């Protein structure tokens, strides 16, 4: 009797060739992007998306071409931060879907751009009996399609704004094995550091390069007098970085303006680069660039 290997095809579906074709499509898209960086945190609400958007603005300010993939499929906020409204018409052709053009020419792709209204949640079926298996499998597929089918063009940087938690990194590693690294973000609170420590441990275990740790909301900057003060009574984040053997690459103050667009529709960094917060963002970006330069040799 013939064995599996004796049978050349799969009976007409050509599943292998379809999977190979998907991989080739993804690879040809990613090959045009020089550096891919994930920004993540084990903990939600630490300001990942605001930091990601302003890091992108800082890179764009230095002349780099930048894109952001909003990998937070169920809590997308990058479009909102970069001024790409849900009402923009999608342009889809054989070569892919055109990314949104955000502030400073930053290209973005987000689930928020695909749903019919700003209030529409991301749901893979409207049937009440949707299973967790179904939702989970669809999210993996969606991430692959958002990466492979977006016409990113040539980019210096693709920043990946990760959802809270560390589970999505499994998908990202599979899709982007050449990932330059992950930036972990925490706030000073002991609870946040407790969760982020797990995320760092997981990345270390999986062999994901960690670019470094950013302490967000490290201090408080008064929007009126631009003076800096202490915000959280927490443990020293530098100790967490030391304990985990990674670098503390930035200490960014809590600044109410960071997550808002300026009156002219720009990101905070673009118009406030000389502020305390702006300089802190630039310093973190400088460290990211140093890491990438050192590790790309």
């Amino acid at each position, binding site marked *: 009797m013939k064995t599996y290997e004796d049978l050349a*095809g*799969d*009976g*007409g*579906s050509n599943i292998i060739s379809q*999977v190979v074709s998907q991989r080739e499509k993804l690879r040809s898209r990613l090959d045009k992007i020089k550096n891919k960086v994930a920004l993540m945190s084990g903990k939600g609400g630490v300001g990942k998306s605001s930091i990601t958007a302003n890091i992108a603005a800082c890179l764009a300010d230095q002349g780099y071409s930048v894109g952001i993939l909003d990998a937070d499929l169920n809590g997308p906020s990058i479009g909102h931060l970069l001024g790409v409204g849900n009402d923009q018409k999608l342009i889809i052709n054989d070569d892919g879907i055109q990314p949104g053009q955000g502030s400073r020419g930053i290209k973005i792709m987000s689930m928020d751009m695909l*749903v019919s209204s700003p209030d529409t949640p991301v749901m893979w079926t409207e049937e009440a009996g949707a299973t967790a298996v179904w939702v989970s499998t669809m999210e*993996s597929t*969606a991430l692959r*399609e958002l990466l492979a089918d977006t016409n990113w063009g040539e980019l210096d940087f693709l920043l990946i704004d990760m959802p809270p938690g560390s589970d999505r990194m499994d998908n990202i590693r599979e899709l982007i094995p050449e990932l330059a690294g992950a930036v972990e973000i925490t706030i000073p609170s002991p609870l946040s550091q407790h969760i982020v420590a797990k995320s760092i441990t997981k990345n270390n275990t999986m062999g994901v390069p960690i670019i470094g740790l950013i302490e967000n909301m490290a201090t408080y900057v008064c929007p009126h007098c631009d003076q800096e003060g202490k915000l959280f009574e927490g443990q020293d984040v530098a100790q967490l970085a030391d304990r985990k053997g990674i670098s503390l690459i930035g200490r960014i103050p809590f600044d109410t303006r960071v997550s808002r667009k300026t009156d002219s529709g720009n990101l905070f960094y673009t118009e406030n680069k000389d502020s305390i917060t702006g300089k802190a963002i630039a310093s973190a970006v400088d460290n990211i660039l140093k890491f990438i330069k050192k590790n790309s040799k």
Partner: protein
Amino acid sequence: MKFLCIPCDEQMETQTDGIMPDESKNLAMKFKCKKCGHMIAMLTNKFETEFVSKLGVEMGGASGEGKAPLSVVGSQLAQAKKELDRGKPEDNLIWTEEAQERIKRVPFFVRNMAKKTVINFALEKGVTLIDGKLMDEVREKVGM
């Protein structure tokens, strides 16, 4: 996964006609030996059907719709923008809104085959309108 006809020692071929999953996503994929004509059905339950959907591939070969950008997202995302809506069958038959909705609910990886099944059934019957009743007849015919 491959299927072998033991008496003929020949690989069985996927049948692209004759598929129509029920509402609970149970599915029957048919395979036929091209030598002796013997047919078998591989039955999957909802969980197995959903698991295969992750691959983003199509049984019976890739269709034009399947190769299009965001093909799986566009076909599965509830309340997606209309630019992503490629679930509407492209043929010369008239599909009622109910029929279009029902075909869009078929799992992506077998939807193209389900469409072919419905269209072939309509052509055989000599009708140009595809509605819910006709789709019920298709399901009855293919044994689901």
